[in-house]
């Protein structure tokens, strides 16, 4: 099912300090327009990389959209994240073509090399790795995407190399 349930004990743990003043421009841009829930949340995620819990309170207050509705939408769509993410996001494609060409092996090799589970962030905060449905580059299967860059025709070994080289290149 699409909807994620947020356990009560986890609800408070992302109340870390965020600079909410950045939200003013977003609220200003979408004020008094209809059907804005998704674009507003997308804009907020663009700023912080995820949706901070405190942003919901402020958004609800300023836009008049109920908090339940904001949370309802945020937990429905795969794009929205309620937790902070690493500096770079690795998306491992698990579309049909990639599955047939061994996407599971790519995922397992990367996760093994980074010592994390799917959806988690590395301890140095550099990578978050997640499985996605389809990146639309089926002819290059299996593929991964690091931020906006796609790497194709991988094997377990070359995927791990790509991840390592990317980190070396972007670490400075």
């Amino acid at each position, binding site marked *: 099912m*699409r909807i994620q349930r947020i356990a009560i004990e986890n609800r408070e743990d992302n109340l870390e300090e965020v600079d909410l003043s950045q939200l003013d421009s977003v609220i200003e841009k979408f004020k008094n327009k209809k059907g804005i829930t998704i674009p507003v949340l997308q804009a907020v995620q663009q700023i912080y990389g995820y949706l901070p819990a405190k942003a919901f309170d402020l958004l609800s207050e300023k836009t008049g959209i109920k908090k339940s509705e904001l949370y309802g939408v945020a937990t429905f769509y795969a794009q929205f994240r309620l937790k902070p993410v690493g500096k770079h996001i690795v998306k491992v494609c698990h579309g049909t073509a990639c599955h047939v060409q061994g996407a599971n092996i790519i995922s397992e090799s990367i996760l093994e090399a980074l010592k994390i589970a799917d959806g988690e962030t590395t301890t140095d905060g550099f990578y978050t790795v997640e499985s996605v449905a389809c990146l639309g580059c089926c*002819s290059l299967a299996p593929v991964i995407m690091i931020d906006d860059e796609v790497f194709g025709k991988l094997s377990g070994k070359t995927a791990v190399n790509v991840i390592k080289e990317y980190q070396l290149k972007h670490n400075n």
Partner: protein
Amino acid sequence: MEQIKILVGLASCGIAAGANKIYEKISAIKEQEKLNFELTKTGCVGMCYREPLVEVIDDTGSYLYGEIDDVRITEIIEKHIKTGEPVKEYIVKTDLFENEDDSYCKNQVKIALRNCGVINPEVIEEYENAGGYLAVKKILNNNISQETVIQTIIDSGLRGRGGGGFPTGLKWKFAFNSKSDEKYIICNADEGDPGAFMDRSVLEGDPHSVLEGMTIAAYAIGATQGVIYCRAEYPLAIKRLNIAIDQSRAKGYLGKDIYGKKGWNFDIYVKEGAGAFVCGEETALMASVEGRRGMPRKRPPFPAVSGLWKKPTNINNVETFANVPYIVLNGAQSFNKYGTEKSKGTKVFALTGKIKRGGLVEVPMGISIKDIIFKHGGGIQGDKKFKAVQLGGPSGGCIPDYLAETPVDYDSILATGAIMGSGGMVVMDETTCMVDMARFFLDFTQKESCGKCTFCRIGTKRMLEILTRICEGEGKEGDIELLEELAYQIKDSSLCGLGQTAPNPVLTTIKYFRNEYEAHIRDKKCPAKSCKKLITYTVNPEKCTGCTVCAKNCPVNAISGERKQVHFIDQEVCIKCGVCFSKCKFEAINLS
């Protein structure tokens, strides 16, 4: 001599293969050596398996070069551009002499893809020079009535290319008949089927054809606002659409009093999806545009009566809209001369999986699946045995090798238990396990179910559990029958297409590959040797020479051993990827 033109294929898959760097390299050389040629970008040429692709057009003709890298492009510039002598060994297609890839292109009829890989999608004039926006102008200049436009589309036989196959002209007629001061046109670009990318290619390679198709539809039904609902996973498509919309507005093709016709207002904006497969369903899509959770609702009322913001709305898919300008400009006959009695025109297929030549092919309806796979696709990778082809993604089914003569038209494919779908064609060979395939799709639909209907929400979960245990060797007698029972109940009691079709991959694999299910359940064996829990890789000490190739290639370092000593695979660490098996030159890896 006319100026030489170089086109670089810069769609997402080309860029992924490194085409951006090639473009920059050509540009740098041009600048440095002050060479006289025109360098331009284009969309997807369709020969994805040869990316990156560079086309050189000189006064002798067109030469398409494939698998371009730094070395090759330098050589092409040195020889072809400077001395006019083509570099034959890198050519994948030219009209001047035969090539091994000719069978890929032969018998393709490009209507929806007519401009993809030909024009620069970011320049509106290139679209216009290729006959673009002439269809709208034809309507206006000849005062063609709304009814006549709709009748032309009905006569063409065009059916929805998103999967449903509903006649497009009829859909327009319903929306036309609804009386309202406000109507909407929506383009469904939420291409969620994993394994299909034809809509992405059209949006990236020829966005103006979609805008023109939408404008014609708007004229026909009397709409004032258009929305393109596009997946957020397609950033390049969104970017090019927005460029195209801005250019159209500047030319007076979108906005107020468009095409100089007083009182004709029509504008389009792009709405980014947020990642939910169910939003491909039209009522869920509209809920999402309105900013809510993308959950389908009951029909009727149909969108043509009460759609977006409760106003009459017409929704068509990207490929459908891309066909419209061609049909209006050239007449219904130019389209319905292709195809079969009930499925007219051409269809774009995304050919992927274990195929030699993967990419986009546009063929007339009615040719056989076998022709697409073997003539266009060149057969199976590594010349393995063709086992099945998956059509229609998570809503579709697997068609086995012995039904490969089935013609591609809506009704023949439906008769096999699969569906035409949006045109994703994933080819499988003997190493693909069909039970695992069914499990893969159920895993997908189970996650994507919006949760509204009980049978879809819980039924798919129970089916997934059963399939998972079968794949892990824990299957029980009666599991197949239980799967079938659940499948029919889910089909019967789900509101939308997602639930109604979710069991299809399971039902078709049971229908055609029941023996594989039985092997998993009774013998605890995976005939395709693919289900991880049912296989082990071990080293045969008699054959192992200690060459270390397996250890070097193991992605998780599960293999240990000194040089020239027998190696050992740690079963605790092994992820059963099979790399050692395929890399070993001495057949020293056993698979059991």
